């Protein structure tokens, strides 16, 4: 045997590794995407240049990106808080729709003379409650029957999508504007619309960033957050320590559902200004899962990752002008998800190439340690 690949678990990855590996993975994903673009007959450099100009170069581009980052931060947080407890909420998409449905109902139902603060507050609360309710439909069977939440949250996405489509396309519901020839939602009154900060960028970005900081604080500094993370590391140890895993499952999924739903509130109130299924159902919930994984479930990490993925998504429509299908956006997002996931192996393991059998005694600087909990 002349050469041998040797894999050793790292006891604890230094911060250089923890940030360097995902960064390299990102670059690798962009290179792969460039390769696919080239095979499809496009110029990848022109494509990336166009994307950069469309989404990051200058304030107006940046404000478009941040506007799109707003719901992505919230759905990213929704997935992240559940991941902290090793619960998979794949239902952010459906919870977002429920938030949009509930908030637009409140906005259309309350009198137009309601003060704006009260109106927006009521919409946020109603949306969050609706999202929490939708998440509990999966959390309760998870907590009491151990029903796989990946499947249940996912199935509920499709139910929520059909429900939202029914309200606008399938019926003359309270939400639908009867005067419009093409089915669409009634426009929300002015006091139900999140104030604009600059162009398309609206107040929702502040809500999203505040939510990230608050969630980070809760997870790091409160006993609830500590228990969540302990259960994530070892549910059995946590229940021996007297923590109620069932109640925490309900709590975490409710919070997760509420966060995803607030993304829906922000979209109807700040962007589409009415219940518009085509504008709302754009995979914001699914993208949140990618964001949480790339940010390693850290709420503060969710913000920059969401901005980065928003930058890619914002550029999509501009790419059409140079003859590249918008769908490349989803391809790039998926490739990033894939390479960063693969990169986790290199974060938790050290890989070396050894030439001879003598190298069986590796350098003593790094003793081979047990895998850290949850490293695999």
């Amino acid at each position, binding site marked *: 045997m002349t050469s041998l690949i040797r894999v050793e678990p790292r006891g604890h990855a230094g911060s250089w590794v923890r940030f360097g590996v995902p960064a390299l993975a990102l670059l690798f994903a962009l290179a792969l995407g460039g390769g696919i673009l080239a095979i*499809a007959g496009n110029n990848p450099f022109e494509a990336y240049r166009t994307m950069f100009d469309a989404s990051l170069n200058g304030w107006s581009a940046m404000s478009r990106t941040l506007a799109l980052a707003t719901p992505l931060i919230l759905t990213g947080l929704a997935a992240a808080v559940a991941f902290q407890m090793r619960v998979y909420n794949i239902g952010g998409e459906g919870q977002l729709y429920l938030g949009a449905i509930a908030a637009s109902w409140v906005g259309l139902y309350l009198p137009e003379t309601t003060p704006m603060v009260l109106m927006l507050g009521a919409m946020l609360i109603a949306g969050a409650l609706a999202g929490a309710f939708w998440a509990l439909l999966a959390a309760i069977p998870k907590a009491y029957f151990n029903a796989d939440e990946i499947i249940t949250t996912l199935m509920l996405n499709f139910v929520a999508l059909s429900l939202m489509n029914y309200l606008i396309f399938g019926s003359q519901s309270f939400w639908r504007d009867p005067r419009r020839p093409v089915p669409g939602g009634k426009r929300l009154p002015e006091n139900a619309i999140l104030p604009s900060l600059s162009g398309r960028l609206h107040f929702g970005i502040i809500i999203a960033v505040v939510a990230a900081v608050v969630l980070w604080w809760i997870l790091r500094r409160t006993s609830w957050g500590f228990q969540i993370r302990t259960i994530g590391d070892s549910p059995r140890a946590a229940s021996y320590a007297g923590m109620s895993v069932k109640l925490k499952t309900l709590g975490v999924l409710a919070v997760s559902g509420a966060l995803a739903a607030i993304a829906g509130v922000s979209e109807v109130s700040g962007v589409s200004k009415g219940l518009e299924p085509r504008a709302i159902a754009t995979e914001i919930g699914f993208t949140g899962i990618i964001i949480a994984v790339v940010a390693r479930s850290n709420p503060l990490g969710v913000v920059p990752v969401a901005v980065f993925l928003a930058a890619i998504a914002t550029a999509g429509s501009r790419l059409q002008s140079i003859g590249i299908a918008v769908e490349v956006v*989803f391809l790039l997002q998926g490739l990033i998800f894939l390479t960063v996931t693969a990169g986790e192996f290199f974060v938790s393991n050290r890989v070396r190439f050894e030439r001879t059998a003598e190298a069986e005694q590796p350098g003593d600087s790094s003793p081979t340690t047990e895998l850290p909990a949850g490293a*695999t």
Partner: protein
Amino acid sequence: MNDSLLVLSIASAVVASTPILFAALGEIIANRSGVMNLGVEGMMLVGAVVGFWAGNETGSLTLALLAGGFGGAGLALIHALLAVTLRVDQTVSGLSLVIVGGGFSSFIGTSGEPSLLSAPNAVDVVPFFPEALRDLPAVGPILFGHDVVVYLGVVAVIAATWILNRTPSGLSLRAVGEDPAAADAAGIPVVRMRYLATAIGGIGAGIGGAYLTIAIVGTWQNGLTAGIGWIAVALVILAGWRPWLALIGALAFGGLNGLGFTLQLAQVDVPSDFLKMMPFIAAYLVVIAVSGNPARARRLAAPAALAQPYAREAR
């Protein structure tokens, strides 16, 4: 009588169940080796776009299904690399396949002049049995009225059952899924088995996707699986990882999918959006029912090492 509502709706359920069945059978094989692959939806989409493209180029159903199988297997091997070799979280890896598969298929489907989106279906899907059999009352349309792929689905169920229960490779595969350390000690190549099983899972999903676009939908649309891959994932759990039960379950879901068509013929006015929800509500309820019943859960147990990566050095 062959035009009666009941006969027509059962016949349409049989066709609608075929893509679900192929995808679920593939996933059963992968799961039985201990690999959880949630990326069925993504693999179906890649199989569908590649299969539809190949069908358009060649006009051959066989080549289209083969190409679809290859497409699904290609994506599945990425999952195998991540889940088996790199030992990352299989849930996360599977989800990434859904997103990559969705993005890749939409990108390929929309690119090019003219794109697949506007392409007509070039493959003729013809009934397998002669007209005399097809015209038999009731059983004709239900049992003999379909194309060859529907019958291949039944053959695949028999083959999967036989391979898993009666052949040395099938037993090895199950051993790898139940106790990889013991299988390894017995000289079974754990990693190779898992790669192979994952690839078979991708072939099943890819064929299912190709059949869906060519024989059922008839055109390429971005995201045309619309959750069928996820139904297949749920079905594997409901069927307790048994091919025969997957066949019955696929027929039930196919029936729910075809319910709209039936009710339309019966002139019952149910909003189509509610009909679209039906399979998903059913899958949601049945997953909970299966989990909530300990006796049933024991009998239909998941492979013991499902979703657990195997590292020889960590033994």
